[in-house]
């Protein structure tokens, strides 16, 4: 049995301790925001927040989570009440297939939370450099990050 706190709720799950957090979230808790993209920590599709830090859940054993608070895409907001970052992605229509978007939203959320002023385009590109998108949605994603920073009142 492993105990986990995800999106503010506490769970006990009966899984092998070496199970990557991603499989527990998706298969045991039914949280499908985080996606399986590579299982190799290369693409970012599986990103979640643990204690506000972006973590690649495909390569993070569930037993290592401990008391850390996990937040998934579902924990940020809903279609009716999206988080500022999610709202910005909707406003910019920043998704094609959308498979990478979990990673983009989670990485952006961690990035914007970790800094004060609004980021430059260069900083945004650096912050997302290890998140891959095959559809070529990058330009809209960059615009969405800028918009999110503005929505969150990050001054220049």
């Amino acid at each position: 049995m492993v105990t986990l706190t995800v999106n503010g709720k506490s769970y006990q799950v009966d899984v092998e301790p070496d199970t990557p957090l991603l499989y527990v979230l998706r298969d045991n808790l039914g949280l499908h925001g985080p996606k399986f993209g590579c299982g190799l920590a290369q693409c970012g599709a599986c990103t979640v927040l643990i204690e506000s830090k972006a973590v690649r859940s495909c390569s993070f054993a569930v037993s290592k989570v401990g008391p850390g608070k996990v937040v998934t895409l579902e924990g940020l907001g809903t279609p009716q009440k999206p988080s500022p970052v999610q709202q910005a992605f909707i406003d910019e229509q920043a998704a094609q297939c959308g498979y990478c978007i979990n990673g983009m939203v989670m990485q952006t959320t961690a990035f914007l939370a970790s800094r004060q002023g609004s980021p430059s385009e260069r900083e945004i590109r650096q912050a997302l450099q290890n998140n891959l998108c095959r559809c070529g949605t990058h330009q809209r994603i960059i615009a969405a990050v800028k918009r999110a920073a503005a929505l969150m009142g990050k001054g220049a």
Partner: protein
Amino acid sequence: MATLETTRRDFLLGTGTLVVSFSLAPSLAFTAGAQTAGTTKRVALDQVDSFLALHKDGTVTMYTGKVDLGTGTRISLRQMVAEELDVALDKIKLVEGDTALTPDQGPTWGSLSIQIGGVQLRQAAATARQALVQMAAQKLGMPSADLTVNDGVIFVRAEPQRRVSYIELIGDREFNLTVDKDAPLKNPKEHTIVGQPIPRPDIPGKVTGTHTYMQDFRVPGMLHARVIRPRAIGATLVAVDEASIKGIKGARVVRQQDFLAVVAESEWAAVKAAKTLRATWTKWEGLPEPAKLWEHVRATKVAKDDVAVERGDPKAAIASAARKLKATYDFAIHTHGSMGPACAVADVKRGKAEIWSPSQAPHWLRKEVAVVLQIDPMDVHIQYLDGAGCYGRNGHEDATCDAALLSKLTSTPVRVQWMREDEHGWDPKGPPTLIEISAGLDTQGNIVGWDAELWVPKADITEWPRTLAATHAGIPQKEALNPGNVHRNLDPSYPFAHQKAVAHRLDSTPFRPSWIRTPGRMQNTYANEVFIDECAAAAGADPVEYRLRYLTDPRGIVVLRAAVSMAKWDARPSPRRDQSGTIARGRGVAYVKYENARTYVAGVAEVEVNRQTGAVRCTRFYVAHDCGQIINPDGVRAQIEGQIIQTVSRTLKEELKWNRSRVTSVDWASYPILRFPEVPEVHMELINRPTEPPWGVGEPAACLPPPAISNAVFDAIGVRLRSVPFTPIKVQAGLKA
């Protein structure tokens, strides 16, 4: 499967696992049939009821065999129907890619969803509207000409209180009407929905984690499977050590001949078992040596020659020309590289198959699954669910056949999820492409003859590639090759007096081929548009002015001029010779009329070349685009941005790696793609022609980056790049030469 967020049939069980009620799926066809007077849902392409059902509650269901692969047709197809039917957009529900409920409008490929799929839907809507107005005329005792429609209500123009609604006229009954190809369409001047940048309905769910992707879909009692592919492409299975996974709870081996898989109740157990299982395969080294790929291509037996264009006598014209030019271009083997590896769920019992798949071609896949299961295609029911973007035929269809076979072999519903190495290693590939062009120039530098040859695999365009499941399980199947219509655009978009273009269709190609976004049209345009640049340079002419000497199509001229004016093109011959220092900048142009039959595109690339490292960076890309009538301009923009960025990636970085046995570029480290810091700014101008037919958008602009970037690099440093990808090593070699 119905994909409007409001028509979802899934629900959360107490366990928190997303499950689709299992009994719903098979009964769906029956339910829909029940709505239509006890018959099964019509799907014939010539029937209005195949495309549209108008309900008693005022909503409309539209049925389409085209699926939204992340391209936004879920909104744009709705716009076409809402406009022509005169019904509010939010009243239209959508059922897409369900083989029992939707007409077979062909695979979702070739930039044809709007151009063919949407036009069929639109004509069905126009027919329906015409019939409804006639019914209303009778009911109201007024001539049709005096009636007008607004949001599903028909009223007398002069006396708006005299009215009758679609609900009263047809609510939940069939039209029983053949699509009238002459049913009048609305005057585009009256359009209020078509032409608007209406947001996509699926994006809120996709950014909040509530949208159900194929990968998220579960059915009760299903097993998780992983397929273990041979160690070498042509290897056969000698032995399996089943005891090697006995420590993994609930995991077991399933095998038919060389088709080897593990299944388990927990997904992680299946993953671990697949990694742990010991199997012995025969040795096989049938692939060509990577360094000798192009010799291999040239030495491959030619099945036949297709002549794309033949006019005048180019050989004689070139022979007697003042100047002769010749160049060879090659284009590497590419993988689709979908962000989510393929996935499917199948439940096969009593000779019938229920399948959930992200395939671009559910109607086609139905036949493929039938081959694998050796049953009638009519006993296969496929429902589409979104996967990751596929950009052509990737691993989705193979994974679907894997799931079908495993469900049959285990008599249990099975979910197959490919791993990253499966998708990169085993999806069918864009074939290696080789092109050679000769031209003759007169003393003014004008082209007097053009002679092109292309080496690509032959294509049986009505057949699908052989599936891995059938191949490995020893199930008989057709041995067809189909890389797509890779000969198109071999004839350049300029009508030279003496020109010839021949495609040598090869009998075989090293890797199982399929189509990847803009198949052949990208490679052919790359060669044509670099070669005409080479001619312009030889003539000492500005590349744009030189193209305009030959371009006669007025819409093409408008597009080319729009692109260069947006990019503030500075007219002069290439290369520029005024730069010193490590970083050299350049600009290059490219133009094509897609398939020489539809969408016009022109582009300008701006690049920076690092003379020391050889690295090329595309900093900006300008596109001018005329696809005729625009249905949703934001959708068009998203597609153009995506194509440019994806193709810049393919042009600068991508190439399949292999050894004599197998693909070795099986992850994102060995098959790198463009990252955020390297992504160009994409600027565009859309030319809307509301009175013209709506043409395709998803592929044409992808023709532009390879030639425009090659031409821009030449402009910057005077080095011609004739081999995609344009890696630093090739640039450095060019600089040394």
